[in-house]
């Protein structure tokens, strides 16, 4: 137990400090995004001597969850919080709509196309036998002459595109 934890525990400013630290931790696969910008950071609270951080997976099999947890624990410990617990929240399920405007800008600056509005799954889900049509622009040259290479990319959350003007491939964060 750290000598500072008992002092930290009761103060509201420490909750906001803990939140600030947790919010600055970045995604291991897309380091231009913080966990907050990605929308996976759901809650930060201080309970007695423990900082409790709640995160949610983007996809069921997201292999980055353990790294996110470890990064959160390290950063908060380094910031003086002795005990850190990271919890998983499965509900509500993550949506690409939760990526913040700042996160979308950061993606675009790094050559990754940000997602459009996520599909709703309230009623029957249409089986789409034609490629999904997205109105995208190439994050490098800005051209709208793009073609889908694959709905599945280097990480679970991305599709692969190619710009037919500048001929460069780029990644698009999928709507989910």
């Amino acid at each position, binding site marked *: 137990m750290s*000598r*500072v934890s008992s*002092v930290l525990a009761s*103060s509201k400013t420490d909750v906001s400090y803990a939140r600030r630290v947790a919010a600055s931790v970045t995604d*291991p696969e897309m380091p231009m995004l913080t966990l907050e910008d990605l929308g996976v950071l759901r809650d930060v609270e201080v309970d007695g001597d423990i900082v409790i951080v*709640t995160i949610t*997976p983007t*996809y*069921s*099999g*997201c*292999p*980055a969850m*353990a*790294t996110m*947890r*470890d*990064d959160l*624990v*390290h950063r908060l*410990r*380094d*910031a*003086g919080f002795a005990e850190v*617990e*990271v*919890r*998983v*929240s*499965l*509900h*509500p*399920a*993550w949506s690409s709509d939760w990526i913040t405007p700042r996160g979308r800008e950061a993606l675009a600056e790094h050559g990754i196309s940000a997602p459009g509005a996520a*599909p709703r*799954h309230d009623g*029957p*889900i249409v*089986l*789409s*036998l*034609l*490629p*999904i049509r997205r109105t995208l622009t190439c994050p490098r040259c800005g051209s709208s002459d793009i073609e889908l*290479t*694959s*709905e*599945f*990319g*280097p990480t*679970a959350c991305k599709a*692969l595109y190619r710009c037919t003007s500048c001929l460069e491939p780029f990644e698009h964060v*999928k709507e*989910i």
Partner: protein
Amino acid sequence: MDMNHTPDPSHLPDDDSVYEGLLVGDDSQWAFGTDFEDPLAGVDTTVPDGVDTHQLAVYCLMLADDALVMSHRLSEWCSNAPDLEEDIALANIALDLLGQARLLLARAAAADPSVVPALPDGSPVPPEDALAFFRDDREFRNVRLVEADNGDFAMTIARLLLFSTWRLALFQRLAASRDHVLSAVAVKGVKEMTYHRDYAGRWFLTLARGTDESRRRLVAGLEAIWPLHGELFTTHAAELVTAESGVGVDPATVADEVDVRLEQVFSMSGVDRPDVAPLAGVRGKTGRCGLHTEALSRLLAEMQVVARAHPTGSW
């Protein structure tokens, strides 16, 4: 106030060698971590009132094993698919299903710990891994559709179309489960499997309308797996009991909807529904009862061999 923000020295590498830091502290510097945490940490795993915990666990094993075995088959395409994009696509689908399997196995273990195989004292293997790697074929509850060998790419696509159409329909209903974990897994799974079904449907159409050879292979692949289609809609006692208590879904209730979706793909593709007899079970018992084809034993032998050789190993 003592706001000491100096990093804990135990996390810093030794000055003598840049590699020293790799040998101290915890394992988290390795890519994606090497330890295992409870995937349901912090999730409320209380079983709802009036639900038989053992039947709930068995039902979770069924849904988990479908995903786990299908995931393993799909991952066998890694570095073997027709091109890099399909390699990546199939691996992504396998990863989504593996994630679903992990959550469902953990849910089964939390609902009824007696379903988890016993391991030697001191074994660090978590319950979901014990279920995946230390059960024998007779204890697996997956439908036989997912265990058949991959065949060629066309057969894999035909199977993925059947599987994802069926599972998506099941999960859409499972989203209303009274069990919070099953409901959350289902809501998330619906989003993922919408992409899986679209992928399989588009490739089905592409292969059917492609060359004579691609069409021949697709039709042959569909006929080869069709004998395992009927089993998807046969209700097992655990499915019935959990459906009646509001936590599970009776697969017979999705038969019509799945039929309509498949017909949509078949008619656009100009492919007839195969006219082949179902594969018989053993005295009427099939995958959900733990009676499988030989293919599952070989799959499990490969999937489980390393874990079984080191039941107390830590990775």
